[in-house]
């Protein structure tokens, strides 16, 4: 019941996001031929011909119904720029983005948890302060800048990691670090505050009254409880990271859907934009579904009510 309802409403949301993006791109000025043909060379007639050939001169509802009816049949259409099937394009780029997102999430969670817990345990002490400051730095720097700084330092100067590309684990280190630091900043904040909430709970007193060591009290009990709100955060973070790839994949010259959607948006290559939005919406919905389901694993309270 719960799952079925969620899936239905998710489908609604995904369909809605497709309509919305399509509508936005349709309403906004410009069309794909802007980048395809040089107006100082081509005549107006040639441009009009090209538009007609691409079908971008059709009214909204025709374009959209055509798109949706194709999609329902599993055809996501072809890129207007080079006719590449959108599905192929996404499948080609997706693994790299997935790897980057996963690696960044790993970086975020690791750094975030360690700093967040340290910070909560040493509440108001110097360690707390440093951990929070590090976390804040993570969310205060423009990612493209920190990315370039990392490239200059670790790739161009020290030569530890490659500055570009998307094959091999070495290429993922720097971009994952850049993106991960941002997420870490949010997680530090979240974990710290939920840890502090937990530390004030009554049961902490029970645990101590049982003679448990502080280590057991903090890491076994408090952290486990504090993880629950942090997991929601991770769901949201995956969305943020997918968005972050638009910038990061460009900075690090990586393949990925962030890159293609950035290009496609600028070029108004609608089928590609729609395809990527569809995929990201599906991922976003899936991740949040997973987050909800994972609650029942870590939080017995949810298991019952669900």
């Amino acid at each position, binding site marked *: *019941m*719960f799952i*079925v309802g969620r899936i239905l409403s998710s489908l609604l949301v995904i369909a809605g996001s497709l309509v919305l993006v399509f509508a936005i791109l349709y309403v906004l000025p410009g069309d794909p031929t802007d980048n395809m043909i040089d107006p100082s060379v081509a005549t107006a007639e040639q441009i009009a011909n090209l538009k007609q050939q691409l079908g971008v001169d059709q009214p909204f509802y025709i374009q959209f119904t055509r798109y949706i009816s194709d999609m329902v049949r599993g055809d996501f259409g072809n890129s207007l720029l080079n006719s590449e099937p959108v599905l192929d394009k996404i499948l080609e780029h997706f693994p790299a983005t997935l790897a980057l997102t996963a690696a960044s999430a790993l970086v975020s969670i690791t750094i975030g948890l360690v700093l967040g817990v340290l910070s909560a345990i040493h509440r108001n002490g110097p360690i707390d302060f440093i951990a929070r400051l590090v976390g804040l730095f993570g969310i205060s720097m423009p990612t493209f800048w920190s990315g370039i700084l990392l490239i200059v330092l670790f790739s161009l100067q020290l030569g530890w990691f490659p500055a570009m590309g998307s094959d091999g684990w070495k290429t993922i280190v720097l971009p994952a670090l850049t993106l991960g630091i941002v997420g870490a900043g949010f997680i530090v904040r979240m974990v710290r505050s939920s840890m502090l909430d937990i530390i004030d*709970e*009554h*049961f*902490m*007193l*029970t*645990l*101590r*009254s*049982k*003679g*448990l*060591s502080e280590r*057991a009290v903090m890491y076994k*009990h408090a952290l*486990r*409880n504090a993880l*629950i709100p942090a997991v929601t955060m991770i769901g949201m973070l995956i969305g943020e990271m997918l968005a972050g790839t638009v910038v990061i994949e460009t900075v690090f010259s990586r393949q990925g859907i962030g890159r293609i959607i950035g290009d496609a948006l600028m070029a108004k290559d609608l089928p590609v934009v729609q395809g990527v939005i569809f995929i990201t919406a599906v991922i976003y919905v899936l991740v949040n579904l997973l987050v909800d389901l994972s609650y029942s694993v*870590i*939080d*017995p*309270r949810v298991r*019952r009510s669900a």
Partner: protein
Amino acid sequence: MEALLDIQELSVGFRTKNGLLEAITNISFSIQPGETVCLVGESGSGKTVTSKAIMRLIDYENGSITRGSIVLRGRDIATLPEAELRQLRGKRVAMVFQEPMAAFDPVFTIGQQIVETIMQHERVSRREAWDRGIELLSRVGIPEPAIRMKQYPGELSGGMLQRAMIAMALSCSPELLIADEPTTALDVTIQAQILKLLQELQQELGMSILLITHDLGIAAEMADRIVVMYAGRIVEQGTAAELFARPRHPYTRGLLQSIPPLDSVRGERLYAIQGSIPSLAALPVGCLFHPRCEYATERCKEEAPPLVESSGSGVACWHEERVAAAVVKASHSNSIRVRVEELLEGNSVDAASRKDSEILFEAEHLHKYYPVKRKSFTAPRTFIRAVDDVSFSIRRNETFGLVGESGSGKSTLGRILLQMEQATSGKVLFQGKDLTGLNGPQLRPLRRDMQVIFQDPYGSLNPRWTIGDSIAEPLKVHGEWSANERRTRVEELLQLVGLDPSSSGKYPHEFSGGQRQRIGIARAIALSPSFILADEAVSALDVSVQAQIVNLLQELQQKLGLTYLFIAHGLQIVRHISDRIGVMYLGKLVEIAPSDELFRQPAHPYTKLLIESIPQPVPGQHSSSAFIQGEIPSPANPPSGCRFHPRCPFATERCRKEQPELRPLGEDRFAACHYTLI
């Protein structure tokens, strides 16, 4: 005999923003092996701090022992290093806390948490520890212990959790069990069960118990000796019998008198200690109790009296003799039943005179069903039957009391009457007018006539509004008053509820709990309504303050001709204030009766057992009589037939099958039972 625990001249301070705050000062008392000592006092008296200090749990709350010693069998806990403290905690001294729901880690099973405790202190295998956990749960009366071990805290009821908590505390056979208000969060029926369990366990295991409570009834039932605390100091201590018979400190005396005895005369003022407990940051000079003390003299204002001790009993008062000389007003020496009967003679007339008066509120076949989220499309739609076919009426100028355990639907019923919630079906007639069909705008003018006082005096006031604005809000929304008139009216109202009229510009957080409840009352009476719903209006308050508010409510009823629906789970208070009482169980009204008759001769077994669960402030009267077994079932899936049958000692086959209707039992009495007790 050597004391198990000997506390000498103990002082505890807390580091706060405003410097070190001394929470308890110079207290000394001891606990003998096998003895039960009760620490009694209102909130803020320092009794919980004392209990935490014994286990040095204050270390985690910025607290520290600034002076004195806590000697447990020859070792001073006050100076013990952390590592040794941990060996002691849970092993030799164990603790049970007030709110069982919050005292367990919600993400581990009961079993995991018990096993964790055992394995912390003893070299046993996990398997052995688990088996011992099952034994323990079974010992504390938890059915199906092996299954409970695997359940999470949230899956158990409060009563069960408190049993499990006790099991966990006993897992390493401690010499001293500290129980901090172990039953305060529980229903009175469950409270009786838990207290009984503690008594049995103590006899069986021979441990000492330090029981912390604000309820003198519990202290009387449990304690060998009682220590009374006030504002971080011990004001009196002595054996239970001695203390109840001859309280020597005015505070002890006041506390005892604040409890409405079951034989009090309705409409009579309760004894109330004036004022409220001072904040630690602003303690008065001299005897700390003097601002509230009727015996206070100049000396009390200047000089703090020492605790004069002899053979384990003592008192800190300059006027000990004068206090002791005055006899406690109501004697608690006799059993309830007898006393009630004696007193009833005078009161029945009064009840009869009100009987025929006009009916103000009438409920006809009220139902309130909340839908439960279905697990699948095919599953049948289920409902929580919060109120299930309830009919009754409230007469003008009377106080109708509504009692029942939590989950009985009494608050829901109250809200439906006032149309703050929509009934699923049924009618509510107010002064003959059906309210159920009215929409919001139609209802609003009618609200002038019916107001509410809420349980939570903190939550019922908008924290961003001055109390003057809050009180004036009903005046404002009903128009008709100019700003000036409103101001005058607010001052008038403040005066009426016993607050300084000039305090209307202050914010809620500047007031104590009792004062806030007075503000709530002022707001409720602002429009001179004819009816007031008092929903657990005094439940959250300390005993002494509770008495003040009850007095105020009664006073206002007389002055303003109010009708009350008084909802509470504290039976004594309800009895004291109500003309008639309705008893609810699982969404059903099981009995309605004039309050004295109800107490004298309950017709429904549930009512009877409910009354018997109340601990009486009469020491030595360990109630061994039958009390209600088990717990209130879920209203989503109530038992068949009579809903009370699974817990009823008199239940028969018929009760299991046939649902009893509420039927008249003589004059002005109704009960829903196949085998009424009268």
